[in-house]
Each structure stands twice: as C-alpha cells, then as structure tokens.
C-alpha cells in the first residue's frame, strides 16, 4: 500500500470514533450503528443480504461497501458523491432511509447529554458539547485506522518473497494483468497497489435479475428457499439505480459505478454495487462471458474466453489479497470496553 495520505490521528480521537462507530443511538430508533451495515467480522460490509437494510427495514439499493483501507479512497459511496470521510459520516446519519435522524441537533444533543461522551469531547476538543465537524472528525479518524494490507500478494510482489504465492496463484496474477483485463480498472502499481482506478464504469450488473441462478448460488444454499412462491402480491416497486449519473446528470454516467478495491475481496461478499454476485467464482464467470448485453456498457467488459483452469487461477489469485490484519481487527476492536 502507498504511504497513508493523511497524518495519523491521536489515539484518543480514534477511540472516540470507535465508540461512535458502534453506537446504536446514532440511529433515530436506537436500533442501528455504523457497524450494523459495516460489520467488522464481515469485512466491514455485510454478508447477510445483497443490499443493506436501513431504518424500519428500508431496503437500500446498494451493497454496503467495505471500510477496509478506506483512507486511500479519494471518493466515497458507489457513486463517488463525497470526498471527505468526516463529511460522509453525516449522510447516513441524516438519510431518512438509513439511520433516519431528524436533524443534526438531534444527534449532537444526544451525545452531549451522555456523561461518557461529554468527558471524551471535553478531553479532545475542550468542550463537553460536540459539534458536527468533531463527530465527523472522530469517525474519520477511526475509519482511517482500518488498515488491512500485508497480504501474501504484497509479500510476493513488493517484498520479493517468491514462495509467498503458489504457481497457480502466480498464473492468476498473470491473467489478472493480461488476458483477463482486470488490472485495466483494478490497477496494480510498480511500488504499491490499491487495486482500483477510482473511476466509474458501467459493468451491466444493474440490469441483472436477482434470481438464485444468476447470483451464482449453489443448490445447497437454496435448500429451504420457497422459490416456487407466487411473489406478485409481495413485491414492492423498486426504482432504478442510475449510479454516477445521479451525481453528474451526465447521460454518459448512467449506471456507472466506482471501481471497488480488491484488497481483502475474499472477505467482502456479496459483490458488485448491488451485491448481485455471491461468490468470486460468479464474478469471474460474469466478466469472462463479457457481462450482460446492456446499453452504455464499458468497452472493457467483453468476452475473455478463459478456460476453467484460468478462471480458477484468477480466483486463487484474488484470495491472496487478504490481509492478516483484516482477520484480527474485529476481535481487537470489540475487545475494548
């Protein structure tokens, strides 16, 4: 990974941010914290649904993105609408579909009335009563501390440990950079790699039906699914998700979404901005067949003609991007009283 692009925050500020991150009272009905959609044990995303569930069950249109290594991302959200973690933190807090707080003051007054938070804000900022920017700063400091690098790939590529990857994994990396075109968007640098170009691309995932087969699930996974149920009476209308276009209003950005980092990707299923692909195998298969026939699709998404062995090698390589720190973080963060 490149050097951290920001000076390290104080331990006390990071700790305040950690407490806020796990604070269920930050939602209007006290039922959700940041950590409910960004579950530490699930790669700081969520495995248990394709897209996140918000206040009073509002179904959000997008998969909760991982927060691991978020310090290196210049733009935030799948559509890149925000650039500052400190500012970004307030968007879910105030979004009526997410944490649903009715106002900024509502949040600040709740925190300002809690003796423990009073102590913490007094010690760090010199006042018991928090401000909007201080809450954002604390959450930003914590989220920037979620660093998870040092993968086997890093040891092999940047530390010269030839044995860190198996021959199959090395083949996978060759494919990643070559035939499979992955590194066109998931960029690998000479000295370091965040595995994203932080640009916006139309992959076509937005038009895919969320059927079990399309999602790449196995029959075991669906063993108890009432797939034959007549769903018509239960279905709720869903609006289109136009991606980056919702920020730029540029028709060329319709259905475009920001490239995800692939670091720790093994830990962050399901995949794509809408969580429509359950496994890495399903993702590789999707790109191998050139995605679906959708308008405005990126020219980079085209049939790759990979063999089964090559697809397996790619998946094996992707799994070398997992960091030992990512596995250790949840226990450490929750162990703090």
């Amino acid at each position, binding site marked *: 990974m490149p050097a951290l692009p920001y000076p390290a925050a104080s331990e006390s500020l990071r700790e305040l941010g950690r407490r806020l991150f796990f604070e*269920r009272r930050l939602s209007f*009905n*006290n*039922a959700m914290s940041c950590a*409910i959609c960004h*579950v530490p*044990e*699930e790669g700081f995303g*969520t*495995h*248990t*649904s*394709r*897209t996140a*569930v918000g206040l*009073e*069950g509002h*179904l959000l249109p997008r998969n909760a993105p991982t927060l691991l290594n978020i310090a290196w991302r210049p733009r935030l959200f799948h559509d890149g609408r925000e650039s500052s973690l400190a500012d970004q933190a307030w968007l879910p807090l105030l979004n009526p579909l997410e944490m649903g707080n009715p106002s900024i003051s509502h949040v600040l007054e709740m925190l300002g009335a809690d003796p423990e938070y009073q102590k913490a804000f007094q010690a760090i900022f010199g006042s018991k009563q928090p401000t909007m920017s201080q809450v954002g700063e604390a959450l930003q400091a914590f989220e920037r501390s979620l660093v998870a690098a040092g993968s086997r790939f890093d040891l092999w590529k940047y530390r010269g440990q030839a044995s860190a990857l198996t021959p199959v994994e090395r083949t996978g990396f060759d494919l990643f950079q070559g035939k499979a075109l992955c590194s066109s968007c998931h960029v690998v640098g000479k000295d370091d790699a965040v595995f994203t170009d932080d640009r916006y691309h139309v992959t076509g995932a937005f038009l895919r039906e*969320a*059927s*079990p087969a399309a*999602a790449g*699930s196995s029959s075991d*996974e*669906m*063993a*108890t*699914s*009432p*797939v*034959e*149920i*007549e*769903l018509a*009476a*239960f*279905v*709720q209308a869903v609006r289109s998700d136009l991606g980056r276009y919702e920020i730029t209003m540029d028709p060329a950005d319709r259905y475009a979404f920001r490239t995800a980092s692939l670091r720790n990707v093994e830990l962050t*299923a*399901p995949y794509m901005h809408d*969580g429509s692909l*359950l496994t890495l195998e399903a993702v590789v298969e999707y790109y191998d067949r050139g995605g679906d026939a959708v308008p405005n699709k990126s020219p980079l998404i085209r049939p790759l003609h990979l063999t089964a062995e090559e697809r397996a090698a790619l998946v094996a390589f992707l799994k070398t991007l997992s960091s030992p720190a990512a596995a250790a973080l949840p226990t450490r963060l*929750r162990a703090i009283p």
Partner: protein
Amino acid sequence: MKTLKQCFTAAATAAMLVTGLGQPAVADETCNSPYMSRLIKGQEQFLHVWTLGVKGMGDGSDKLVTVDSDPKSKTYGKVIHSLSVGGRGEAHHVGFSDDRKFIWAGRLDDSKIFIIDVGTDPAKPKVVKTITDFAAKTGYVGPHTYYAMPGRMLIQALSNTKDHSGVSGLAMYSNAGELIETYPMPKDQADIGGGDGYAYDIAINARKNVLLTSSFTGWTNYMMDFSKVLADPAAMKNFGNTMVIWDLKAMKPKKVLDVPGAPLEIRWNLAEGQDWAITSTALTSKLWLVKEDAKGEWQAKDVGNIGDPSKVPFPVDISINADGKGLWVNTFSDGTARFYDMTNPEKPKQVYEKVIGKQLNMVSQSWDGKRVYFTSSIFSLWDKKGADDEQFLKAYDWDGKELTKKFELDFYALKLGRAHHMKFSAKSDVASSDASLLTSRR
C-alpha cells in the same frame, strides 16, 4: 409470525409445574405459559391486539388496541380503547406476567418492551414501564417470545447487536423489569448435536424438565422486504433449522434437533401419557412432532405437509385445543385457516379449511375452543402489498364443523395499523382462579 403463546392441554396446571408432579390438570385458553394464573375458562370480555403503526395512518404509532369481545355488551365487536406507545418499532408479540395483571409487549426493531397494566382495568390498559435497554444489556435484539415464569419473565430474542444475524438467546427478567440473566442459544456445540444459534419460541414441559425452543431468522431478514428476502440467496441462507431441548432446571441446552425450514410456534400436549410438542416449519410447510422415543430420547419427526409445500402456503401461527386433539394452523400466503385432527399426533389429519382473508397470521381460541379470532399481519415488510394488504381482526364461532363469522374490524379503515398478536382479558370476577395455587405457593 406470530405468536408466542404456548399451548397446553389437559395436564399442565401451574401448581403442578411448580411442584413437579401429581397436581390437578388445567390448561390455558390461548396457549399461554403454564405458570400464568387466572385462566379465563368462560367468556373473554376483552381482546387486546398489539398493532403495528403505519406511517401516515392515524398517529402512525404502534398501539395496543382493546376490543370488546363480550357478546352481551353494547359495544361488542367495537374498539373501546387504543393505547399508543410512541413510534414504530416493529410491534410483534406480547405475553402475560404470571399473575396476568401485566402484558409485556415487545418490538423487534428497536427492542423496546412495554409493560402494560391490564389488571387494574382491562378496558383501559396503561403503560407502567418501558424497558429501553434490552439490547444494550443483553446483547440481543428483537425480544420476541414472552413466557411467564414464577415471578419472572423469560424472553426469547431473535437477533443480536453484533451483526443482526439470527444468532441470539434467552433473557430472564424479574417481574419488575430488571434483567437477571442471559442464556445464549447453542451454536456449534458438537457434544449436544451442534446448533445454529438461532431462536424463536419457548415452550415448557415441567414434568419432563424440558424447555423447548425453535429457530427463525435475524433482524436483517425480518426487517427486509419479503420479496427481497426470497430473491436474495445471501439472505435465504440465514434461517434456523433447529429446535433445542433444554434442561429446564439448569437452563442448559441438552440436545439439538434437526428441524429444517424455520420451525416457529411450539405447542405442547401435556396430557397424561402424551407429552408431545408440535411445531410448523415456515419455509418447508411441514408439521414436526417432538416426542420421546422408546429409549426416552427426545426426537423430532416430520409428520406431514401443510397444504401443498410447492406453493409455499407459509404456515405461521398455530393453536392447539385444550384437550390436545385439534390444532389450528394458519397459512399466510393463501390466507387460510386449517384445522387438524391431532388424535394421532404421528399422523395429523386436516379436516377443515377456510380462507379468512388475503393474508393471515395469528390465531387465538377460547378455552372451550368455541370462539376463534384471527389477525392479519406478520411483519410490516413481509405483509402483502396493495389491495392484498388487508389488515383485520375477525371473530368466529366454531362448532367443530364450520367457522361462522361474528364480527370483523378493518384496522386500516379504522386508521389503527397492522393487526398482530392477540391476548384475552376479563375483569377480575370473571377470570378463573384455578391456578391460584401457584400464587399461594410462592
């Protein structure tokens, strides 16, 4: 889904459950805890319906709606009181305290529990305490089943604060509303058969020293639009597939039973020589029998389909008759109430069915089984949409052959919300004192 009412048949008297053996048999009129006193064996006077508020409808708040259920009353079949508790938190199930003077009414989203006085004046219930720190103190989310214990309330939750999955546990509270202890559901305990950690209902057979639990799903699923859950393979993996036999006195799990497809309500037949429990599985549409085998080992057995499982009728609430020989089974998708002959629990036989509405969840029957009440809502986001989203309370007489409607209330037309769990009450001079032994022995 429904209910928390634990049904008992002709054997479980509260006193017997406390002392263990040999006491006269009584049962409960609506499947309440056997530790609950003041059974209503005659005419229930009031019906309390725990109702989910709907945004933009009336005051939008969750509320306990009280309906006059006495046919001799001038206001029979009418709403006579509505107690708004504030906010919408996914109102779900309720349960009586052991003295039947208080209803504990819970919410699955914000995990608030309202302790409501229905003993002082059942026509005018009043909130006396609100527990707001259930999640913070127990680590569990979604208090679901409220099961009266002597002087205490045992609560089964559906989820947890860590990841909102279905891994959860039980929490014992004092009647004053103070947390006493928590008991996690077994998970991956090889010595007792594994366990998925999931939770749902509680039912006790004290003679056998057995507490039986079932398993459903966590916050992420029950707070997600139902059509999305069904279409989401990541979500569909997260349903319970187990029941657990606990050592009641030790409050320790003893054996995990494999019951795939989300086993929900549990009803015991505690008649002498019976000692079996029945449950239904929501996703696989089956009835499962839990019974000791010839060696005294508890086993779970698939004893038949409910409707056509390929059409996913989605069984929800069930209610067993006082004599254990009949069972109401509601199926949500087709809005149908089905009655089963349980004379041979190994081979339940459906003998009647009637479509009650476009959707159907809860059922409560009087002690003599002659009056049956139905409500419509399962979860705010699992109920049907548009015109199929009927919200009602419907009251019927049952003569053993046919349901005859006595009255119905349209909860949307009345701007009340989604009708969910029901409990009966009566003024003190009406309730039976059969279980007063329990009170006097404490």
